[in-house]
């Protein structure tokens, strides 16, 4: 395979992994926009979503699409519950204390999964399909399906934020909570909705990333650095920024394979965070939520 073809293959892979990364990155940034703290618990919710989808897929025998919905719903509901019970009381103490609590929450939830499923790697029940080839370029049908699911999820969120009344209310709270409150918007309800949608997307993203490889209790934690990188690059709190950030990080991580070994993928995410924070501390799109 020539260098040009290799680069094209990596760009294609980067575009696809970036699209998958966009799903949890949007989840993280949405929660940040509304509740204003970096919620590290996206890691555990991605794992929980991946396992919820796994149970639906392998134990209940559901196909991938309904399993993905299961991942979204279970992680979303857990997100609302864990925020309500664990994280919400911390918010008056400030974003940093809440962030530390969210790290502890992630470890606690991860261990609940480990308690139930053990540490072994698990795979989804997928139909075996041959890769499509275009010259030397390969694409897996499953990758295309994942890409389609990711695009639908992102599009649905944009439609929700852009054209529903509740979506507008959410943007209003993200933009200026005091003003939104004066206008009679119930910030608590919007916060719960942000937790549901944000953690639901994390769970969905966790499953999509797991569909590409295998899952275990650390699935979420291994990707959390890339997810944060995507959100920070795009501007923490900006939903379109998270998409751009995710594509940047996804392509960056794949292109790094030209000169780094694959184990360093998440280090690339970290370096991108450092670079962006040094040059443009508010990310590419700044902080506007939408």
């Amino acid at each position: 395979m020539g260098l040009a073809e290799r680069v094209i293959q990596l760009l294609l892979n980067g575009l696809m992994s970036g699209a998958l990364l966009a799903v949890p990155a949007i989840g993280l940034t949405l929660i940040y926009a509304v509740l204003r703290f970096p919620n590290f618990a996206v890691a555990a919710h991605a794992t929980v979503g991946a396992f919820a989808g796994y149970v639906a897929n392998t134990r209940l025998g559901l196909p991938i699409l309904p399993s993905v919905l299961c991942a979204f719903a279970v992680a979303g509901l857990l997100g609302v519950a864990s925020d309500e019970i664990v994280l919400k009381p911390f918010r008056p103490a400030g974003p940093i204390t809440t962030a530390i609590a969210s790290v502890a929450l992630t470890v606690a939830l991860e261990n609940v999964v480990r308690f139930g499923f053990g540490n072994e790697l698990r795979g989804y029940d997928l139909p075996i399909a041959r890769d499509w080839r275009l010259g030397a370029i390969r694409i897996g049908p499953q990758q295309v399906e994942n890409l389609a699911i990711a695009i639908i999820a992102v599009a649905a969120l944009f439609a929700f934020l852009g054209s529903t009344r509740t979506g507008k209310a959410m943007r209003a709270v993200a933009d200026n909570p005091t003003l939104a409150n004066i206008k009679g918007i119930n910030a608590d309800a919007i916060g719960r909705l942000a937790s549901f949608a944000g953690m639901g997307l994390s769970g969905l993203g966790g499953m999509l990333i797991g569909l590409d490889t295998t899952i275990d209790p650390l699935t979420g934690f291994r990707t959390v650095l890339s997810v944060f990188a995507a959100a920070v690059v795009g501007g923490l709190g900006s939903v379109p920024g998270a998409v751009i950030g995710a594509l940047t990080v996804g392509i960056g991580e794949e292109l790094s394979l030209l000169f780094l070994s694959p184990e360093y993928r998440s280090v690339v995410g970290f370096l991108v965070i450092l670079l962006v924070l040094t040059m443009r501390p508010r990310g590419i799109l700044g902080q506007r939520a939408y």
Partner: protein
Amino acid sequence: MENYLIAMAVTGCLYALMALGLNLTWGLAGMVNLGLVGFVAVGAYASALLTVKLSLPIVVGVAAGAVAAALTGGIVALITARLRGDYLAIVTLGFAETIRITASNEIWLTNGTDGLSGIPGPYRGTLGPELYNLLFLGIAAAVLAIAFVFAERLAQAPFGRVLRAIRDDEQVAAVAGKPVTAFKVKAFALGAAALGVAGALYGHYTSYIAPDIFVPLLTLYVTLALLAGGRGNSRGAVIGGFLVVFLLESARFVIPLVPGLTAVQGAALREFLIAALLIVILRLRPNGLVPEPRLHVEIPGATTDSDLQLS
């Protein structure tokens, strides 16, 4: 049993040392460090590599571990100095993962996930295991004592006062003419140095380090130690360090009594309990079980709080 208790006392000293380091940055200067385990790893690997590969004396190794951790800490602080605290949380977490991934993959240097073994300990060969344990406990306790006295002095010195001012309101400190960035970088470097020494001592004590040891869970344990003792409070940090080791070890004895658990489930339960405990303490006592003592500065002729209450 005696050996076990001594080993736990050494571990307690190291946790207390790490909690002291974290207290300097998070407790005093208000800079969160979710990647403190990364600095512990830098110190451990620097010292282990210098003593194993270059056969340098252990003292030189530990000192180099402190310097290496301080330098990386300074760089991390310099990059993030202008940013808000939530970005520091992200960067430090990423830093620790980067160190761990590098240690796992640069096999030529670090021996990868197999870890480095045969790290020399002081007089390990000539003393028996019991005497060696005792000697190391003496060393760890001495290092902890020095760090404690240093931290106490620092907290009361003008340096510590400026750090608290920065923590409480960065802008006010800047308006008062304090070079905020320089102070932050120094505080972070000093805290990282203590973490690095703890890591270096750990390696020399157990003779073995591997990337698996430096996981985010350790960061949580040390954060829990500082919170349990009290943020901004060196004495609390030391007490908290020993308390956490006691809790972790008690859990090790109690959990096997629960019937029908596999080893993995037992470990999961233990980690879950520790994380839950951290959440509960953070929730009930956000500044720790023993909060920082408030400094009272007598200003001649000024009305004090008690005067105001009387009037």
